[in-house]
């Protein structure tokens, strides 16, 4: 278990949404075994796969499933991997706490963030909204979060969002931006919202069934649509089997998944999903 005898180094990179979990896993593992050096980056899901499929990293964090072309790149490089579901996320649309807006319909979300958006004031979206200028803070184009919003929610064929919003790969920057600017809007993973619930306000989303607030329950129950999404880690099979540190870290991660998710303030998997993940992990040790 904890791999108390193991030593060596593990390189993890990828989704910034998953970063806090993988980082928390590393931090908790270090309390048990300080001989394992884990470095966790947050290059974004796409950037992470790029490195993962060229063999530079052992584990890749992802806030969406691997894309076909990424999978091909891995296969071409002879890299076999295993996908492990680690948590659920509720992509949260947040605004400055003083803004008198509480709920958006899915259509309004699309209108607000879409590549051809003409929305410069909140009142452009709905005349009942205040006359405040809109300022946006959104994840960078390399993030899975951006991809998810662009491709799966907005769904424009260009798969992009509007370009005049501030963007950053670091979700903390987004929190700062939204909380520090009047009329600001942004979106990011649920955790970042929960950590900063006192600074920003989460909007409810109305996908035709009435306004639903993001939360562990609504996400787990499948009510928070279309913004709930799964989070993964991808493990390089060969590295897992050859590098005792990678094995120790992965085992520890999955073993303590509930505690890690809780520590990192994520929405833990339900029992069913967790059982599936454990099975997948067992399949890894080949």
């Amino acid at each position: 278990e904890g791999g108390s005898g193991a030593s060596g180094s593990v390189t993890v990179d990828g989704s910034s949404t998953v970063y806090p979990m993988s980082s928390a896993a590393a931090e908790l593992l270090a309390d048990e075994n300080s001989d394992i050096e884990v470095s966790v980056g947050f290059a974004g899901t796409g950037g992470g796969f790029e490195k993962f499929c060229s063999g530079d990293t052992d584990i890749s964090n992802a806030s969406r499933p691997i894309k076909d072309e990424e999978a091909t790149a891995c296969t071409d490089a002879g890299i076999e991997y295993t996908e492990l579901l680690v948590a659920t996320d509720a992509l949260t649309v947040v605004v400055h706490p003083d803004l008198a807006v509480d709920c958006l319909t899915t259509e309004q979300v699309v209108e607000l963030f879409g590549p051809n958006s003409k929305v410069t004031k909140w009142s452009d979206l709905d005349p009942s909204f205040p006359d405040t200028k809109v300022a946006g803070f959104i994840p960078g184009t390399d993030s899975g979060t951006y991809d998810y919003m662009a491709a799966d929610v907005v769904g424009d064929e260009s798969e992009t969002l509007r370009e005049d919003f501030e963007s950053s790969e670091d979700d903390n920057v987004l929190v700062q931006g939204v909380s520090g600017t009047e009329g600001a809007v942004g979106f990011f993973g649920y955790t970042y919202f929960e950590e900063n619930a006192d600074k920003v306000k989460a909007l409810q989303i109305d996908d035709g069934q009435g306004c639903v607030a993001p939360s562990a329950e609504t996400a787990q129950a499948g009510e928070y649509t279309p913004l709930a999404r799964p989070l993964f880690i991808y493990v390089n099979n060969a590295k897992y089997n050859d590098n005792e540190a990678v094995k120790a870290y992965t085992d520890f991660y999955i073993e303590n998944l509930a505690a890690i998710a809780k520590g990192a303030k994520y929405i833990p998997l339900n029992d069913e999903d967790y059982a599936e993940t454990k099975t997948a992990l067992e399949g890894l040790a080949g």
Partner: protein
Amino acid sequence: MSDALTSGPPPGAGLTAPDLSARSRPGEAVIKALLLLAAVLSIGITFGIVAAIIGPTIEFFQQVPVGQFFATKDIGSQDIRPAVVPLMMGTAITTAIALVVAVPFGLGAAMYLSEYASKRARKWLKPTVELLAGVPSVVYGFFAVYFVTQIVLQGWLGLEVSFFNSWSAGLVLGVMIIPTVASLAEDALSAVPQALRQGSFAMGANRMQTTLRVVFPAALSGIAAAVVLGLSRAVGETMIVTMAGGAAKNMSLDPGEGRQTMTAFIAQTAQGETPVGTPGYNMLFAVALLLFAITFVINAVSIAIVRRFRQAY
């Protein structure tokens, strides 16, 4: 013309000549070669910079038309955001604000140090001012965000500025380059010969008139060089604008809004670790090359100013 030889003893007579033959000193030659090598390396660095940047830049322009690079708005798809003009705007606006702070304060400090301060006071005041340049730029960045933006601009002044904005980045950047301007300008002012000051005082001019009408114009080329060097520092500074200036490609002129500069773009993109080889990644180098070219030109201008107008007194 002289009777030296007849009246003096023959020079050097009766002594065997000492050995003066050339000896080889291989150590000496090796050392000199090493020193030369070290100096030549500095040229290697310049070539290295250009070489390191140029490859990906060429690749970038194969992927993206030049017109799209020099566009004011991104016209591309997926993860290509090639427009550089908004970044140049960002650099221009923050730099302008920085110079508005640094030039008057820097020159004022320089005039005080050179024309008013006693020798002893100068010995300690000048390094103290120079400390401002020694404060790490992350520290300034942090200060810009949490003090200047939040406490001064939004709090005390009650301005409706964005969390990331050019005011804060530019002002703090200006403070950071005050010593660059002050130090060089002070050197230029001090180099004005005392005789000119005496001449002015003897005409019944007071100290202010002497400073402004005689010393300042006489030192003008050095002062111009100081300002230009400050400009080049402002254009190249990264952390303050990355932390306080935001990441929006913004063509508006309102300093209360945030905007990305060329340097901030490089830092933020590099941190995001965009996949190697993609246009998004290669753009990093195109922007860096542009930045390098701009600072190179600015610096060449400053060297030329000094050369051209160097006072002979």
